[in-house]
């Protein structure tokens, strides 16, 4: 909300300057976006009077002007404009000076010195509507006989300070200068007064010109119409134009300017209809019919749905309630009679309509946040006052006012002790009363109870908590003490999930991995890139783009993109991981199942087994469960170098080398190993509590065993079988050699293991050791067709 400081001062006797006021208002809850100094980009531009014009000796289109700028000597300036004349008053940029488009220095034009520039309206950022005469093609000729040498900003009212306030959704009343001035008065302890309402009514009667029928009283609780006859469309006086311009709105003509001025002043959006365009003289406020159409003021055809509120006449829509008027009932140069509208529409409905049409206006923005029915009337009275004051037309007598709302002011009673208990303060009731009165909540005291009458414009105040906030913000948040009643008697707790994830992340960090964070969104393209169908997914209705229209079910595509980015930037030997959620829709449930997942990537010299080692260690750290690998069938992984990872019977993840085709799709210049684990399943088994086991008292016996098996038998699978077959005496099975070649025969390989055995009771005798080895060999022979290698 742009609030010109001068305009605030019209209603509040503020003593602080603009910046001090802004600081004070911030501390009472009026956030300030920025403070703008207008006219700062215009410097050393003054009023000049052209005393003499001579032709340039060497250029037909140039003239030399001698100008009185209030200095001892006349200023010589060469101009190319042909609308200048001796005796004209014009804006002169004296070199060196500054204009919005850039600096002006002295120079020579075709050999004749020029000590500045004569300015057009455009060069001062002015249009004809801002200042009559500014739109002329050529130098701006100033009206009257202004003082020569006067700063042009002063003459044309181009300077001033504007405070841009952040207005909270709870304070729609502050989307107005009056609301802002009330806050300014409260912050600066200044007197406040409302602008005057005073106008004469003429014999024509509004009710004879227009009637109002509210057919949707749930969406429109007050509608006031007032007519003005004998309208003379023309420019507004300068003071109105300056106020509007400072507040960021372009002046148009007196009637439109009045509606805009009143909206800015009171926060109540107004509309003006050309009365002759209201067919049948009746205004009907009703819901649209589905598919109903109308052209709005911006010359666009709009199609409405049944929940949108329209302003109609006997034959059809003439405006979209609270959003924008219709093109056909617009005020034109020919308008003779105007009907002003000041109404209260329900905020939720206007918000919906504005969003539905994709049309946001100053009006819809205010209605969407809420207006109050008391201001609805005040705004109309202000508009008519301005019509009268500006001589823009004759105010007809009476208004048509349809009211469907109780205007009784709310009264809230609060115990002062309760407010102090909420705030942790000790403010006397009397003092609270003063603070509340300062923010226009008329407050009496009965006993220890504050009796607060809430003005209509403070619809946000509903209960004791709100009153406490009003007291607190005027008392000053700084003055509320700081207490430490919340001494912790115990340390807070975090979930097992988080504790385990900490362990995993710390381990990976220590192993040299870098943690990544990527967005949770994905799109059909990502699945196509890994050669997968789009799974059933959580879909976003209003995504930022098609590529971010789904919630992801896998972290892999993003990780591959990150790998590619790093490889292409020559970041070598990078190891990466991310912990994030996948989102899986659940039948019959409104919310998806969110699964925490871990994705890992290793580039450079690392291979499948480096990754497998990392995964095995993660298991050891979190659950103590050993993993088992089965060949995977993932389109994005190398078919021979990839595995599904199982913990018991549960598949907990997948890992492998990225498929060469996938590398191409992701533009990965080098290979990488990836693993993705479901942390929910991975953590499902709790890690057993550590219990001490006595160190072995007796020595171990170690025997080697070499067997020949089919080449596709998993050497790792054999190990698990050997451990099981050997029984409890087997302490450790280690693989130390694998080879294939002529010696072992085609389609075969030789694998050799060292088997360590131990008994807790005694040193194992040779016969015992041999028996264990025999059992192991027998199972290998039976299950895998293994042959002992001699």
């Amino acid at each position, binding site marked *: 909300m742009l609030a010109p400081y001068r305009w605030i001062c019209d209603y509040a006797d503020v003593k602080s300057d603009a910046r001090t006021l802004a600081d004070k208002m911030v501390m*009472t*809850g009026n*956030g300030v976006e920025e403070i703008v100094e207008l006219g700062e980009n215009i410097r050393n531009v003054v009023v000049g009077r052209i005393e003499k014009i001579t032709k340039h000796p060497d250029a037909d289109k140039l003239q030399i002007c001698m100008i009185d700028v209030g200095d001892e000597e006349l200023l010589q300036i060469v101009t190319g404009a042909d609308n200048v004349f001796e005796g004209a008053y014009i804006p002169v940029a004296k070199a060196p000076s500054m204009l919005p488009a850039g600096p002006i220095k002295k120079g020579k034009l075709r050999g004749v010195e020029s000590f500045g520039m004569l300015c057009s309206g455009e060069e001062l950022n002015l249009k004809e509507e801002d200042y009559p005469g500014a739109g002329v093609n050529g130098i701006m000729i100033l009206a009257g006989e202004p003082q020569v040498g006067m700063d042009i900003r002063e003459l044309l009212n181009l300077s001033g300070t504007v405070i841009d306030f952040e207005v*909270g*959704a709870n304070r*729609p009343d502050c989307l107005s200068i009056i609301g802002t001035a009330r806050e300014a008065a409260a912050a600066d302890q200044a007197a406040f007064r409302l602008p005057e309402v005073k106008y004469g009514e003429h014999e024509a009667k509004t009710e004879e010109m227009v009637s109002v029928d509210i057919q949707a009283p749930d969406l429109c609780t007050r509608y006031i119409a007032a007519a003005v006859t004998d309208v003379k469309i023309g420019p507004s006086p300068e003071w109105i134009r300056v106020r509007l311009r400072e507040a960021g709105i372009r002046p148009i003509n007196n009637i439109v300017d009045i509606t805009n001025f009143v909206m800015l002043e009171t926060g109540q959006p107004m509309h003006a209809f050309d009365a002759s365009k209201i067919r049948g003289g009746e205004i009907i406020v009703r819901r649209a019919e589905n598919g109903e159409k109308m052209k709005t003021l911006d010359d666009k055809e709009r199609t409405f749905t049944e929940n949108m509120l329209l302003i109609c006449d006997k034959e059809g829509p003439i405006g979209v309630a609270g959003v924008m008027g219709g093109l056909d009932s617009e005020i034109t140069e020919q308008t003779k009679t105007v009907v002003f509208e000041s109404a209260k529409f329900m*905020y*939720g409905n206007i*918000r919906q309509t504005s969003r539905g049409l994709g049309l946001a206006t100053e009006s819809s923005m205010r209605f969407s946040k809420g207006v109050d029915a008391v201001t609805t009337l005040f705004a109309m009275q202000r508009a008519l006052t301005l019509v009268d004051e500006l001589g823009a037309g004759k105010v007809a007598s009476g208004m048509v006012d349809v009211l469907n709302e109780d205007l009784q002011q709310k009264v809230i009673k609060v115990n002062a002790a309760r407010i102090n208990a*909420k*705030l*942790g*303060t000790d403010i006397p009731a009397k003092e609270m009363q003063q603070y509340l009165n300062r923010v226009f909540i008329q407050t009496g005291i009965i006993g220890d109870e504050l009796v607060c009458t809430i003005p209509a414009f403070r619809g946000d105040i509903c209960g*004791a908590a709100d009153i*406490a*906030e009003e007291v*607190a*913000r005027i008392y000053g*948040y*700084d003055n*509320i003490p*700081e*207490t*430490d*009643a*919340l001494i*912790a*008697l115990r*340390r*807070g*707790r*975090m*979930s097992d*999930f988080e504790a385990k994830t*900490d362990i995993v992340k*710390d381990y990976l*960090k*220590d*192993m040299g991995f*870098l*943690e*990544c*964070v*990527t967005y*949770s*969104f994905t799109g059909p393209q990502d699945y196509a890139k890994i050669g997968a169908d789009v799974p059933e997914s*959580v*879909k*976003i*209705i209003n995504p*930022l783009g098609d590529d*971010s229209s789904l*919630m992801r079910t896998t972290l892999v595509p993003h990780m591959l993109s990150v790998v590619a*980015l*790093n490889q292409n930037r020559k970041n070598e*030997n990078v190891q990466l991981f991310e912990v994030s*959620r996948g989102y899986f829709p659940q039948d019959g449930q*409104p*919310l998806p199942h*969110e699964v925490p997942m871990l994705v890992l990537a290793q580039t450079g010299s690392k291979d499948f087994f480096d990754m497998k080692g990392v995964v095995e260690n993660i298991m050891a750290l979190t659950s103590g469960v050993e993993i088992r690998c089965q060949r995977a069938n993932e389109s994005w992984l190398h078919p021979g170098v990839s595995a599904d990872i199982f913990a018991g019977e549960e598949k907990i993840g997948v890992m492998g080398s990225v498929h060469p085709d996938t590398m191409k799709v992701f533009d990965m210049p080098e290979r990488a190993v990836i693993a993705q684990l479901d942390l929910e399943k991975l953590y499902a088994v709790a890690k057993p509590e550590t219990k001490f086991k006595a160190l072995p008292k007796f020595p171990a016996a170690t025997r080697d065993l070499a067997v020949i098996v089919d080449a596709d038998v998993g050497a790792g699978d054999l190990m698990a079988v050997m451990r099981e077959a050997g029984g409890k005496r087997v302490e450790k099975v280690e693989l130390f050699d694998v080879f294939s070649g002529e010696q072992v025969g085609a389609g075969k390989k030789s694998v050799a293991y060292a088997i360590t055995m131990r008994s807790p009771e005694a040193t194992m005798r040779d016969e015992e050791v041999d028996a264990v080895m025999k059992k192991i060999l027998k199972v290998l022979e039976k299950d895998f067709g293994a042959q002992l290698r001699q």
Partner: protein
Amino acid sequence: MECEQIVAKAQGEIASAQSSAQLDGIRVKYLGKKGEITMLMKQMGTLPGEERPAFGQAVNAARKAVEESLARALEEITKKESAEKLAAERIDITLPGKKQELGALHPLTQVYREVRDIFLSMGFDITEGPEVELDEYNFELLNIPKNHPARDMQDTFYVSEDVVLRTHTSPVQVRTMLSQKPPIRMVCPGRVFRTDDVDATHSPVFMQMEGLVVGKNIRFSDLKGTINTFIRNFYGEHVKTKFRPGFFPFTEPSAEVDVTCTVCGGKGCGACKGAGMIEVLGCGLVNPVVLENCGLDSNEYSGFAFGMGIDRLANTKYGITDIRLLYENDARFLRQFV
């Protein structure tokens, strides 16, 4: 006398020996089984009886003299040889150490853990909740009905009429109040989503941490004490805070908290737009409407809530000016946070 000559000769050789091996040779030459002094002793049998004692003494004295000389020389030479060996083993200690390259946790994780630890020490439990959330929990129970103007404060991704991507972690507070009796003291971290296009200061996904305390007689002054304790722990004792009135539909009274700018220390700079303070946190007393919505009697209980962006804390802590770096995952960026 022969003995004296041998000793002199032996000592001469000892003096010119260069290594322990040479000394050993000398020892063998004079004192070995067939050494010259040993041989002298063997001559004793050929001498007349009365000469023998004197001769014996003389030879023994000679042996002792040579032995002592050898021992002294050996000690010196050993020392010298040891010194030479150590000198030969001298290394260039400025060569780099051999190591496993360190990894790094993401700056958001590091800042989150720091914040988490402070709140854990203050007795706050860590609670998580779903990221795809019911509109009811994300908005309605938090005093933001459908089409309420406050909805414009948070541009929302919708999954359906009733399901949204959570715009803040406040729904976790709602879930906690609905399922747990006071006293409640919790913080809820996690990803949140807003329909912001990506630029240097906006990201459609970011990380938030909110907190909630509900109990009996919880006051605004307790909120101030808690927040100030947190900020002093996180930013340091020297940092000043400023509580300004603010607006959130779920708290009343509400406050925004500024802290001394971490870049300029309060003098005013580009990062703080000259204000010397930066906004880091929003908070307030839980709106009684929210307590009632969550089934708590607002006459019996009161509480406060607060929320902050972990991204923002990270940016202010590390001086990161472009939020996109946090989500790009360039190893050269990530390695800076080892």
